[in-house]
């Protein structure tokens, strides 16, 4: 996708330039009611532009992939959604100069891919779940499509945070992915029942998120580009005003980013988190916030500051950090280094985030901090 970087750089400029003046409507996708939901019928609908940002929250260990992440830029995609009482269909298009299909006999190549994510629980009284495959209190459904030679690689998962992606068998959905050589773009189309045992999407305002993998950038797993939560607005269904009010909090110019930045330092956020020029915290000690503004909604940011225990995020595999100071067991095994687990689990299995709640912050302080975090893209 290198060729498109210049162009993308441009679009990112525009976005960051009007940082703070974002509007909730940017995150709303109008869904049309259609009797006949096909890729063809959706392609006639107006497309909504969405941005996807490189995932930075956790850093993985593929040296070559990590080099590429540094160069990775946000990309733009277009989506259209249609529904009827039975089904919902989503059409996703994005430019990709380099079509990558995972070949049959190599170890180092990866295929392009796309996924659509829905929270299993949403609506009035339910807080937004963590964007990265959900969290313990907010499981999500993920539909994945990948370009793999000789195989129709499509899977449905249920997940509640990093490492918990669990394949389930969902009948009656189709997910296709075609490369349009003329326009050098991928066209993906998913059609699924509006309601299944696991997931009910019959609602006026349905949170949805998208991820795209670029094989050429060695993308796979958390190594990807993601959106924040978008909201599908079903034109013929009722929207709960409270829920709308809740999720639309914090858009637009809500505070002073500069002050927010200082507040974060004063409150010692940089002691655990890395972001922008703040890199004192050990890698992996807490989620990296460098691009958090790109894929987090304002209300989510607020929640996770005020009540971190509501969205406890699983850290990556705790075996990535051993405690060399501790004593080895009889087989020479070091204990894991607890410093790198993001939560504490009591013997009943209840987990609490290691991040303390910052409820004491004033409303304005919160707004300023969120305003600052939104600029991190």
């Amino acid at each position: 996708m290198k060729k498109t970087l210049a162009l993308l750089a441009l679009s990112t400029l525009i976005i960051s330039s009007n940082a703070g003046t974002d509007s909730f409507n940017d995150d709303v996708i109008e869904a049309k009611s259609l009797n006949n939901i096909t890729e063809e019928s959706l392609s006639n609908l107006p497309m909504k532009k969405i941005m996807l940002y490189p995932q930075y929250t956790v850093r993985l260990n593929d040296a070559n992939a990590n080099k590429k992440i540094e160069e990775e830029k946000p990309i733009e995609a277009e989506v259209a959604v249609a529904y009827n009482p039975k089904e919902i269909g989503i059409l996703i298009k994005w430019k990709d100069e380099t079509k990558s299909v995972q070949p049959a006999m190599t170890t180092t190549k990866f295929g392009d891919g796309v996924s659509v994510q829905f929270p299993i629980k949403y609506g009035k009284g339910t807080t937004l779940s963590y964007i990265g495959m959900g969290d313990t209190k907010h499981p999500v459904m993920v539909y994945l499509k990948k370009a793999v030679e000789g195989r129709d690689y499509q899977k449905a998962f249920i997940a509640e945070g990093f490492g918990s992606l669990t394949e389930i068998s969902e009948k009656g959905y189709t997910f296709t992915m075609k490369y349009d050589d003329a326009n050098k773009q991928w066209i993906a189309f998913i059609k699924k029942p509006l309601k299944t045992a696991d997931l009910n999407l019959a609602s006026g305002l349905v949170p949805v998120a998208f991820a795209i993998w670029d094989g050429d950038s060695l993308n796979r797993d958390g190594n990807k580009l993601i959106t924040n939560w978008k909201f599908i607005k079903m034109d013929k269904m009722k929207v709960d005003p409270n829920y709308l009010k809740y999720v639309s909090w914090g858009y637009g110019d809500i505070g002073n980013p500069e002050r927010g930045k200082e507040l974060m330092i004063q409150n010692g956020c940089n002691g655990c988190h890395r972001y922008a020029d703040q890199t004192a915290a050990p890698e992996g000690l807490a989620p990296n916030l460098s691009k958090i503004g790109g894929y987090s909604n304002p209300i989510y940011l607020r929640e996770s500051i005020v009540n971190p225990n509501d969205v406890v995020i699983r850290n990556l595999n705790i075996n990535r950090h051993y405690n060399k100071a501790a004593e080895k067991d009889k087989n020479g095994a070091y204990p894991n280094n607890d410093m790198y687990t993001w939560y504490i689990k009591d013997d009943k299995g209840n987990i609490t985030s290691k991040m303390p709640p910052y409820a004491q912050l004033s409303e304005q302080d919160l707004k300023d901090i969120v305003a600052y975090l939104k600029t991190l893209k």
Partner: protein
Amino acid sequence: MSKRQLAMVMDLNKCIGCQTCTVACKTQWTNRNGREYMYWNNVETHPGAGYPRNWMEAGGGFDQDGNLRDGIIPDMVDYGIPWDYNHDELFKGELLHTKSELEWGPNWDEDVGGGEYPNSYFFYIPRICNHCSNPGCLAACPREAIFKREQDGIVLVDLERCQGYRYCIAGCPYKKIYFNPKISKSEKCIFCFPRVERGLPPACAHQCVGRIRFVGFLDDEEGQVYKLVHKYKVALPLRPDFGTQPNVYYVPPLFDPPKFDENMAPIENSRRIPMEYLELLFGKEVHQALDTLRKEMEKRARGEESELMDILIAYSHRDMFRLDNNYYQQEAAKKGLKGSEFFRIVDQRYLQGANTQRVEIKDYTFHEKILPQEEKKSGH
């Protein structure tokens, strides 16, 4: 942290580089189904690039502070693209040739080593998965789909949950976990646990013609593995600096003829293999290990007893393996698998261990019907 750890010791002084282990493993596991390019067991000449090519420079493992290091994923050429031949065309009078270009292979620099004639040198290192106590592959897996078996510490990839991300390959400093493109998941040496559970040593060890491989539990104080690793400390892990605590141990190369001076006269007490190289491979402990070996050999040469020499000589092949089958039967019972085909003993010869007395069978009878297993409760 598994309850117990099954381990292997390989004596590099006895390794003749014949690769019977490599082929035994291949026919047992990797001659099919997308594994063709994999050598769960390979034997490489050192000094040399090894398999996959330059694996020692490919990263992974843990840094000084115990944090996982970034690594790379070798490409197919580094592994050696498994080439095929036109055998069928021999009936058309054709020459026999490969169907693809020859660029590199898993044993490409066989016997090359280092130095210059007449002072060249080389030795062999057979390598399987080290079934580490701190496995790099396991740590690297964001799916947490790689695990150590509680009962014996064997490291396995859960092929149900693996999604083929390949961070494990970058994370393993030994590059002993492989991507199977056919199923788009990672596979690796499984220490032949299905054989072990039924009374057979891993194929590579069972069939090792050089008789260099001992298999047993690290906590089995009667066993050769314990004695070589803990009692005599002559068996050392490969590249301990990678920080994964391997459970495959090597008796380092002591056998090494003297060099010649410019007049072709042998130089007394000279070594061909540079000690720096052995330090790189086995750490500083290698000096101690070689000294112990040397002293015990001298003792033996003087006609004195040496338990260490007795162990390394290994009089009885069957006694090189202590699979402690009663222990596995107990574990199977817990999982309700006792008596299932998976745990039916097929061979009586290698069952002894901390919880299992040697099954005294008359020679020759192991091929006949399986003798009843006498139960013995104890330990572990």
